[in-house]
């Protein structure tokens, strides 16, 4: 199965090339994909923890999110 390709355009000549990636470049893309998925998972976890902490504070204060927004506006 051929590797993915990248597109290069020479703006001086107008030549458009579709260049097959090397195995090393393909691996680099795969590494980037894995790193990106890990980053997004980390972000999702952090967001969930923040939401949980926020809900805890609202419950302790006995106010709703809308009331908190009003207070902070």
């Amino acid at each position, binding site marked *: 199965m051929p590797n993915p390709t*990248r597109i290069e355009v020479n703006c001086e000549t107008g030549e458009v090339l579709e260049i097959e990636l090397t195995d090393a470049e393909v691996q680099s893309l795969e590494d980037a994909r894995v790193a990106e998925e890990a980053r997004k998972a980390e972000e999702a976890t952090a967001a969930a923890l923040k939401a949980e902490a926020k809900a805890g504070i609202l419950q302790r204060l006995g106010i709703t999110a809308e009331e908190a927004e009003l207070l902070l506006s």
Partner: protein
Amino acid sequence: MANTYTLIAAVNVGAGGASSIDFNSISSSYTDLVLSLSVRTTQATTADDLLMRVNGDSTAGRYAYKDLYGNGSGSGSGGSTSASFNYVGRATGSTATNSTFASNQIYFTNYAGAITKSITFDGVTENNASGAFGDFLANSYNQTTAISSITVYPQSGASFVQYSTAYLYGVKNA
């Protein structure tokens, strides 16, 4: 307002897709550059982050960006003062509504001047559900050499799909 607006080069991604799009040998004869993107990627998400490098430069610390975004559920900001790439918004991903593409524009002011480069971005992804984004970005590239090549690629390592397009325009002020 621009005196002339010239199409320098156009890319239409074919059936094989493309992992990146690179414009090189860009003439220094314009005042500014505009890169218009209509892009969708193979990444299993509704919005896939897009990155950009100029002059093939991946040196850490030469790029900075500040993002202001909203997605219908809320808004936020992010950025970096020292990066190895510019962040240029998002492409629509493969789990977004079928046949929808992000609409993005990147403006390079005084790209050939012997100054630090200032690059702005505005764009939106498309999705007939949650998970669509609007972004405004201020980017910079701290080298004073003229920009002669521009490469855009998904941060995820995914590919641009068929019918994605990229149009590079030169803008002259006289």
